[in-house]
């Protein structure tokens, strides 16, 4: 079952997508990742992680309506 989720782009991913956020329909994080890389080929060169509702995704996770997924290039703070 695919769910409607919100995707947030940060850092280099925001530049690759040309936007800060958009909606996707996806059943899990693996499928979402494929969709994003297909839509924005430049994203394939960014070693991004994903956060699901502010928690780093460590293995493929199911998605539900209104989940927030953030696309996180390597952190550069400090």
């Amino acid at each position, binding site marked *: 079952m695919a769910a409607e989720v919100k995707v*947030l782009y*940060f*850092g*280099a991913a*925001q530049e690759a997508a040309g936007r800060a956020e958009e909606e996707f329909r996806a059943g899990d994080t693996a499928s979402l990742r494929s969709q994003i890389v297909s839509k924005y080929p430049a994203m394939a060169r960014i070693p991004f992680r994903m*956060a699901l509702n*502010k928690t780093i995704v460590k293995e493929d996770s199911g998605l539900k309506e209104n989940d927030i997924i*953030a696309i*996180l*290039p390597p*952190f*550069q*703070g*400090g």
Partner: protein
Amino acid sequence: MKSRYLTGGPITPVLISELMTLGNNDPGAGAVSVFIGRVRDDDYDGRRVTAIEYSAYEDMVEKEAEEIVRTVRAAFSDVRSVLIVHSKGIVKAGEASLFIMITSGHRDHGTRACRHTLEMVKEKLPIWKKELF
């Protein structure tokens, strides 16, 4: 700002002075360990950095910074307070973009906790930079 750990623009000397007075009310705090990160005027292929623009996933910064504070306090029992402030937006070369302050009873836990906090800030906080030339 959505996060108490972020401030807009540089961490100015005045702000640093203010932050440092926060540790002054505790006569059991024998050690204050501070780390300040600043924007360097690095050279990239002959172009000199004049500023860095920081962006952040603010909600997650809040959550992760709170987790860092909890972890540090649990790991270093002599620590009495942990303060973390990071810039968001434009910070010019020579200006500060990160401030960490640890107060502790004695120096050992304080200096180690300061370094540990710094490493965790770099590893855990969802912050990105863009060099401006």
